[in-house]
């Protein structure tokens, strides 16, 4: 099994009430507090993300009232000691709004059901500590993934920017993201080159990549079979160590898999007796054909044994 696992998995379909700022934060606390250690901060909580490999970071969630918006809830990752501060994301409460959440001790995905690219902003947020192969004794690593060992590795992404791309509807981040690997911090609010952007790694036929990510790409589906029969790939995540350096793979997301086929947003799928929900659907052009992102809904359905990585690093 090549799904990186971090347990327990909490899937809350439309269970995060967000009618008000306070209700939203309270619902999140109910969801996250059993999974993560936390401390109180002004108007909110600071949660400790901790991966099965021992990596840690902080997720601060509080009522920031940013820009005078009383519905804005701030989400911000920092290093464990708080010295490196990530992008200040906002997710908005609204009357009658409920979010779905998929969380584990080191990862949080937040979204409004059926809402993908649609505005308004402030409807999707993702963050976490990825599985870093070289820290796993069970991985097939042939060399450390980073210089020395990875001591810090975290990322965050949301739609809170004019370029609202995020993992809810794109494999590339847009204008709201931050990453940090071994004290190398990058924020989308600072200048960076395109090749350093936070993104998920998809696969395709080895042909030149179009200038526009919206351009048609070749599907990876099985021939002669059922329509769109996909490959299931590891959701590797990558970014550049500096604003000008090419992205390199830092690891893979926990508790999910990347099918090489277009799937309906929030669609439920069962593969080999494992139930999944599709988190990612790009409605633009053919880009959505690249892949989807399936979340594991029930950890007890996962087979035991086998390795963690689809790739040998």
């Amino acid at each position, binding site marked *: 099994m090549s799904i990186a696992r971090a347990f327990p998995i909490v899937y809350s379909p439309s269970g995060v009430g967000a009618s008000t700022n306070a209700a939203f934060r309270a619902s999140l606390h109910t969801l996250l507090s059993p999974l993560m250690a936390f401390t109180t901060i002004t108007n909110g909580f600071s949660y400790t993300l901790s991966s099965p490999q021992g990596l840690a970071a902080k997720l601060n969630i509080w009522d920031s009232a940013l820009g005078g918006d009383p519905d804005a809830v701030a989400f911000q990752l920092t290093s464990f000691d708080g010295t490196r501060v990530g992008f200040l994301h906002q997710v908005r409460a609204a009357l009658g709004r409920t979010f779905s959440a998929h969380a584990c001790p080191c990862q949080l995905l937040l979204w409004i059901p059926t809402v993908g690219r649609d505005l308004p902003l402030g409807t999707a947020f993702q963050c976490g500590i990825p599985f870093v192969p070289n820290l796993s004794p069970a991985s097939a690593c042939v060399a450390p993934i980073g210089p020395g060992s990875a001591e810090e590795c975290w990322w965050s992404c949301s739609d809170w920017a004019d370029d609202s791309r995020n993992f809810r509807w794109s494999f590339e981040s847009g204008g709201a993201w931050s990453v940090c690997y071994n004290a190398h911090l990058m924020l989308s609010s600072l200048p960076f080159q395109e090749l350093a952007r936070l993104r998920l790694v998809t696969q395709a036929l080895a042909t030149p990549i179009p200038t526009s990510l919206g351009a048609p790409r070749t599907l990876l589906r099985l021939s*002669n079979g059922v329509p769109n029969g996909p490959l299931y790939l590891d959701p590797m995540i990558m970014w550049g160590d500096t604003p000008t350096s090419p992205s390199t793979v830092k690891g893979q997301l926990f508790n999910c898999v990347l099918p090489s086929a277009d799937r309906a947003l929030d669609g439920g799928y069962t593969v080999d007796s494992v139930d999944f929900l599709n988190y990612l659907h790009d409605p633009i052009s053919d880009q959505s054909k690249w892949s989807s992102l399936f979340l594991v809904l029930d950890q007890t359905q996962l087979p035991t044994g086998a390795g963690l990585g689809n790739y040998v690093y």
Partner: protein
Amino acid sequence: MTDFLNNNSFSVRYSDKRANLSARAIDSDWFDGNACIDTVRNTLFTAGWSFVNPLKIAGGGTMLLGSAVLQTDYHRGQGYMELADTAGPGTALSSLPYYINGNPDYAAVGAIVPLRFLLKSAQGLYQFESGNFATAFLGPGMRLGVRFDGGVDMDLPAGTVLNQIRGLPAYAERWPWSNGNFSGTLYFWMYDRAANNWAETTLPGGNCGQVNDRFGSFILARHESAGIGPFLAGVNSPSAVCSPLAIGRAWQFRQPPQIVFIPDTDGLDRSLDWVAQTGRDSVTGDLNFKADMTGTIGNNAVTFFDFETLAFFTGPQPTASGGGWVMTSPGGEITVIIRQSVDPSSELVGMEFLFADSRSSIVYDSFFYGRPSGAVSYKLWGGLGGRIGHPPQVPDYRIIASSLGFAIIDVLNDPGNARNCLLAVCPRLAQEQLDGGATKSVLIVGPNNLNQGMAWDQTFSVSNDGADFITSTALAFTRAGICTAAFGFNYPLLTSNGRTFLQNAWVMAPPAGRDGPESQILGRVPDCLVLTGDQPQGYRFSFDGHTFICIATQGPGTGVGGRDRPVCSLWMAAD
């Protein structure tokens, strides 16, 4: 049901057997099809491929391959290559010899069992280095036996000569023979690397061309008298017609242009004192030979005799292609004819691969005189000339074979070279357990593709579930290729410390031969993995207990717009 676990895990799908050999062409303008074809054949054989007898028996049934058995005890070191130590009388010699000692003139020298009742190219006669053979290999008095299994005489068209050991495929020639029709007679071949001009002294017509020291001798011994006298032929001119058995094309051959015809056993013995004794039990039983290797012809030790089932000199024109071997992968997924190919215009000699599909009917006539129906053809050539500052370069082909496919690459990979390479694989089997796909697919990537990229929009063919091959020429849009990480920017996909990734070698091609904008997954290329970095063809690295050789690569190129093609390479286990 989708095999999720199998699908989502990195693993190399190893086949049962693997082998690799170098098959270097000899010079730039004369492709040593013999050496290369033999090497390809031997490598495939070692990887588990078997031979197909293209001949049919009366009624159209499949003609069995013949067999050879030892008539005397065999002990290790007595001269038979790769045979089991315990081989004894009656043991079938199923191994095929290969032995390359580095001497180009002895390239593809057979190190053993010369008894091959199979199609082969004329140039591929096995031979032993003089001195080695008689002294080190085959001991005096060693007896070899030929067993005629299920043989029947062939009813050949008029003007066709079948040189057969009863029931076994031999060679055929449509040239209008002046010496009559030998159909149904019993022959065997003997091959000698004779001295210069040795053959000329016994030429009946004296109309053979010059024989130079690059040529050896070819000896045909006829076991049953047909009233035809001995003859010799040596040809090194494209236009010369010196012997019915040395039709024009012999000029292309480095080794076997001379032929001796011996009318009967007595004549054989008289002419060849190194063959002390021959005998035949009956045409339907065994034929036994006793090889007394103590004699020589002049200063040239006989290299070996070879009971051949030859298929060469095919086609009526001096520049016709032909000969070769028919081989099939262990499961029958791939059937390929490997034969010599001649370009009539340039007279370049190369190696042709004919891949059979469901339409192919590999029968005697169609095989020898034209391509099998339904087959697709790809050719490899020798050096095709150089460019300024780059003299013509001889390809240094290397074949890497497994029981589910093979790749041929030019490890020199010089910019001035033709950069020929070829890949034929069966990328999916039923046991792949993928969702609803074909139970098998055969993908052939033609020359000049692998070393240029990992996606191909020209010269490839694909067949799913044994259906007809669809070639790229019939497809306007669809490409074939390898799946890899979609990361461009002129950079490979690396880990944060610069390490590349190994990925499953998923390969894509037009689904069921349909044209369209998309290729689809056929399966994993057997014995292969994909690396997210580029290395030159022929490079090696060790992984998972195997040596992997780079057979295809693409570096950052000039792609569309600002994002170039992904950097990746395809590696195949060679052992």
